[in-house]
């Protein structure tokens, strides 16, 4: 039986993990490769690196991190952040990423998704959707795509956009609620469910996890194929094993051991 994936996500800036990973004794809590190794050993099903390096010129260091991680971790690795052209994807895949996550470039140019999927295969093209609820109380649910860390509205309806990029060849969607991100108040389950039921491809739930029940709800109510979280894992509140045991107890199929 296919298992629901638990995916820790590391924000990487200028080659360092933002805020560090503190659940194990690492020689260097800010080293992404050490953090990746720790999550590999802890039984994470995949790992996600999100590069938030501001300057394009400083991004070379990311390729080295990806290469060193892929050399040690025999687990799937998704890398996102700042991907603008086909050559960015090629370089990341050659460095050892298994999937790349495209965000702003997909919003700016839908044809880029098709080009990437044709060139490298849908299996490695993830589209990251950052959405905010724009419907008022009592109105039917509506979410809009935002870029630039949730600051810039695009006017695009999130469910329509998801349907379109799936049709263009995306192999997976990483759906983040910008309303919930960092709030620890749980995923926006209506958003996750609305998108998951609209597309034939897997959806990864993201944004807002504050506890293990949120991971369960992402699957049982959001109908996500995978659940992504950051701080609850990095700061040692919960281990990957805790998360999986909690999900298994709720009847969700997970990969143990």
């Amino acid at each position, binding site marked *: 039986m296919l298992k629901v994936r638990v995916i820790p996500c590391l924000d990487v800036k200028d080659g360092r993990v933002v805020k560090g990973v503190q659940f194990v004794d690492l020689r260097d809590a800010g080293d992404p490769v050490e953090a990746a190794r720790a999550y590999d050993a802890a039984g994470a099903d995949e790992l996600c690196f999100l590069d938030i390096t501001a300057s394009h010129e400083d991004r070379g260091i990311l390729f080295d991190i990806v290469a060193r991680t892929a050399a040690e971790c025999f687990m799937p690795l998704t890398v996102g952040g700042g991907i603008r052209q086909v050559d960015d994807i090629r370089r990341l895949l*050659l460095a050892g990423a298994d999937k790349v996550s495209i965000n702003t470039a997909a919003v700016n140019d839908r044809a880029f998704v098709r080009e990437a999927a044709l060139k490298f295969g849908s299996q490695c093209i993830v589209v990251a959707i950052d959405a905010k609820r724009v419907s008022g109380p009592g109105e039917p649910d509506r979410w809009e795509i935002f870029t630039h860390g949730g600051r810039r509205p695009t006017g695009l309806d999130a469910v329509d956009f998801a349907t379109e990029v799936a049709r263009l060849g995306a192999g997976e969607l990483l759906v983040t609620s910008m309303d919930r991100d960092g709030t620890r108040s749980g995923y926006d389950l209506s958003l996750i469910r609305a998108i998951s039921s609209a597309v034939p491809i897997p959806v990864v739930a993201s944004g807002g996890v504050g506890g293990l029940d949120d991971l369960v709800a992402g699957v049982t109510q959001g109908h996500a194929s995978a659940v992504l979280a950051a701080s609850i894992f990095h700061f040692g509140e919960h281990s990957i094993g805790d998360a999986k045991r909690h999900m298994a107890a709720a009847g969700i199929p997970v990969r143990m051991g």
Partner: protein
Amino acid sequence: MTATVALVDYGSGNLHSARKAFERAVREAGRSDRILVTADPDEVARADRIVLPGVGAFADCRRGLEALDGMVEAMTESARGRGRPFLGICVGMQLMATRGRETETTAGLDWIPGNVEALQPEDPSLKIPHMGWNTLHPQREHALTADIPLGPEGLHAYFVHSYALQARNPDDLVAVSAYGGPVTAVVARDNLAGTQFHPEKSQALGLKLIANFLRWAP
């Protein structure tokens, strides 16, 4: 004597992690095999074992393989002529089929009779690609899966694919995975074998399967 394992590099994805996984399997098994990533047909012809990886679309991979002058001939001579152990991974395994039917129909190597067809799970709510960790269900015993815990409580393999090989000969099926019906996971015929999943990304199961391949004496 040090045996050489050739990983065929025909521009289909990154072979870095595959090489590292094979090197680790060599180390952990206390062996001395040399792992060689190569695009040179002569090196492939000389190798004791051949691994054909592959990610992306069937037709693209086939074209990539053809673009290396003499590679298909070298692989065929070694695997079919000399009976050297051969392992296809993901699309590398699919290329061993008669033909691929992914957007366009493309001839495969026709070593394992059957076509590569789109996954069509009985349950339409199941997502495509079949992406993530799934268990394997043995169809028959085989050296590649020896001593690997299989079945619902067994180890997991990492899959990511939208098409699968439908082997014409049931004896070629070594293991399947369940995803809205059986999905071909491991095939083998004589000295030829293939996995739909990625052993180089499948942690314990993957390393064991690679070690079994290194020892395999078909």
